[in-house]
């Protein structure tokens, strides 16, 4: 009986130790900006993204009157900002940018797919892709049907 109690206590202590160690040593998630390869990595993604949009017949019309230079620099800034990088986003709000464009949920998803393709091309691991995509997804309400 006593022996069983001892074994039990050791087991509980060991388990607690394992959990505590797990908590203490759980790696803090790397800063997303760094995980994306810093500004250099983001710039590659933005270039791939612009090319993917240019090839995407579903959405290219929305960009017909866009100034590509400004889109490029604002995207670089915005992604850096969203990924907790050392940037301020100096562009217009998402609502102001998209008002009157009539972006549908299908258009938004097409852009999401273009972003996935851009990140695949840049060989961004899927976990890092998802960290960025989940933050971009939060902007959807400010973008569609404006």
């Amino acid at each position, binding site marked *: 009986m006593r022996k069983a109690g001892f074994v039990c206590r050791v087991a509980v202590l060991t388990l607690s130790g394992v959990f505590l160690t797990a908590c203490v040593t759980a790696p803090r998630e790397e800063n997303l900006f760094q995980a994306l390869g810093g500004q250099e990595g983001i710039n590659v993604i933005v270039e791939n993204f612009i090319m993917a949009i240019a090839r995407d017949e579903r959405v290219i019309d929305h960009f017909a009157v866009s100034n590509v230079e400004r889109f490029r620099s604002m995207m670089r800034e915005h992604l850096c900002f969203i990924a907790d990088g050392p940037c301020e986003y100096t562009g217009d709000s998402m609502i102001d940018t998209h008002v009157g464009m009539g972006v549908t949920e*299908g258009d938004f*998803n*097409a852009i999401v797919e273009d972003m996935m393709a851009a990140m695949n091309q840049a060989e961004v691991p*899927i976990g890092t892709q*998802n*960290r960025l995509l989940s933050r971009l*997804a939060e902007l959807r*309400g400010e973008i569609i049907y404006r």
Partner: protein
Amino acid sequence: MTKTNLTLFGSALLLLCMPLAAHADGRIKGTGGVSSISGAGGGGLTPWAVLTSHSTREEWGGSVFLTTANVDDFTLDVAGAGFNYKDRIEVSYARQNFTIKANDARISQDIVGLKYRLAGDLLYGTVPQIVIGAEHHSLRDPATARAVGARKTHGTDVYVSTARAWIDGIANRTTMLNVNLRYSTANQFGLLGHGGDDMGSRLHLEAAAGVFLTRSLVVGAEYRHKSDNLSALNEESATDVFVAWLPSKRFSVTAAWVDLGEIAGAADQTGFYLSIQGTL
């Protein structure tokens, strides 16, 4: 109608709708799920709060599927189709052929499903996707159900279902959770009719979880509570562990290990499940 005929029928129906659904690709791959054994977008053993195909509120879409489940003493073959109108209403149909291996006896059943999206979105915003649905079962071979003491040879299940996918979920993989609450008097998915002399709970909980290992590969598990309504036969809950491969928005293959518990006196019915789905 034979299974082949049924499949042809389903395919023809979908072909007819092709012009309408020609570009129903507006949602992210996987958000339409696969086809459950009732024909409703799911899930395998249960429907989920997703509407089949990838159509958005501006589009129509549809899917056809073939499924086989092979457990120790029985096989279940299913063929069917689902239609999605503007990601708001789903109509589905499935023909189930249940075979008792020992004597090659067959029970055939039709299931017509209706699903309405009440609120929310699987992927976006603060509200998870919530649907209500109904599944009407009607036995084409009612003799067995009558023999085992079922009250009716047809019946309608009603369910509320909610689903959420977190893009950045477990281990930074997109992770989906689905919970259904079903009102049902069905015996063994309706294959042994509805109701009995020893009614169990009419409210059933169903749950499913899945993780996208990649954009094309999902692993997960499902649980479906079932009631034991017949004093003559024992009925147990069903579970499965699945892997689904979605190489494109057009096609998916789902393989699973299923545990259907005791069926018609045969205990521990476990085996494999395979489903292929084509989507427009």
